[in-house]
């Protein structure tokens, strides 16, 4: 690798990064979502898991997610330097070298997959390996810069954690695991497109073909409505399969209807008002996923421990 010899590096790079800089490469905020969804996937799966093994499995999934974050930053340092949102990441700001980032990502990926396999089973480990590969290679290297559907496909990587959690407990992938996958998979496009709508200029400057830049705002707004409606339907899926009951079904429906209503409201806005509504939708999308998964957990808990609903 020639990067270590590249010129324009500040003296801090030659000193190596601080520990906090390396931790930042693991995208701790994305990790929170990964840990949370994997945790829910694990707890709602039928059958139990030894709590120690469960804790280790979650840790492995989190570290695996962190590894893909590092690999993503290793590859994307050039475009991160062009967007205000990512300008201060460790590599573009000169705190960590690309070489170090690649090594960190590969090391953590290897250890997290191997440890998950030894602790639980190799289906879960294989899914984690596939997720890292999918995010780092298929999404980051291949699709992100070449298609406006990048988010749709990249969303699949973020949708795997609950499925990995499920597989860690059961050793299989059932319809319920696929539904959990579908919920996050369908949630990701409206979530990111809402962001892209009010950060449009940023993506344009970095040359990333996000939907609003390529297909226009109207097309993006339409797509958001479509995905949100599909998400609302998928969100009801766990009730249909009998995984959960009405304690989940009622809030899931209400959350989905509100999400769809906000998406439709965004569809009929323009200019500054459109950006404001896009921001509202973005914030709501985070709340949606969190409350939905908490409701899932609460319902399964009620059924399992109290036998109600």
């Amino acid at each position, binding site marked *: 690798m020639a990067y270590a010899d590249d010129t324009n590096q500040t003296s801090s790079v*030659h*000193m190596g990064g601080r520990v906090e800089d390396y931790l930042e490469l693991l995208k701790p905020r994305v990790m929170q979502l990964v840990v949370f969804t994997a945790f829910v996937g694990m707890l709602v799966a039928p059958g139990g898991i030894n709590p120690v093994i469960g804790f*280790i499995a979650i840790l492995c999934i989190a570290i695996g997610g962190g590894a893909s974050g590092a690999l993503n930053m290793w590859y994307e340092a050039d475009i991160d330097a062009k967007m205000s949102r990512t300008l201060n990441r460790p590599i573009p700001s000169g705190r960590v070298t690309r070489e170090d980032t690649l090594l960190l990502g590969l090391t953590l990926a290897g250890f997290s997959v191997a440890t998950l396999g030894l602790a639980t089973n190799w289906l879960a480990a294989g899914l984690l390996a596939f997720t890292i590969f999918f995010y780092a290679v298929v999404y980051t290297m291949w699709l992100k810069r070449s298609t406006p559907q990048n988010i749709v496909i990249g969303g699949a990587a973020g949708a795997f954690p609950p499925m990995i959690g499920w597989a860690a407990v059961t050793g299989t992938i059932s319809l319920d695991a696929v539904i959990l996958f579908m919920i996050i998979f369908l949630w990701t496009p409206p979530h990111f497109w809402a962001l892209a709508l009010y950060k449009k200029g940023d993506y344009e400057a970095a040359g990333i073909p996000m939907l609003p830049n390529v297909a226009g705002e109207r097309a993006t707004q339409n797509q958001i409505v479509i995905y949100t409606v599909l998400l609302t339907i998928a969100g009801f899926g766990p009730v249909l399969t009998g995984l959960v009951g009405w304690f989940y079904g009622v809030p899931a429906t209400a959350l989905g209807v509100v999400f769809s209503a906000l998406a439709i409201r965004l569809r009929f806005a323009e200019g500054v008002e459109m950006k404001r509504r896009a921001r509202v939708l973005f914030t709501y999308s985070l709340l949606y996923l969190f409350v939905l998964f908490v409701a899932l957990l609460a319902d399964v808990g009620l059924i399992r421990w109290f036998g109600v609903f």
Partner: protein
Amino acid sequence: MTVEQNMTEQQRADFIKRRRNRSIAIGIALAVLVAIFYAITIAKVGPDVLVRDL
């Protein structure tokens, strides 16, 4: 990575501090890994860890 000759005293001190912190972090990570493998072993094999055919 080596301590470069042309660093000022200030930079050298900063470099050594960072290297030390990184070493500590790696040490902690390795200790956690050891603990994890020990925990996996106990959780999977349990008390049977002492039962074995000779």
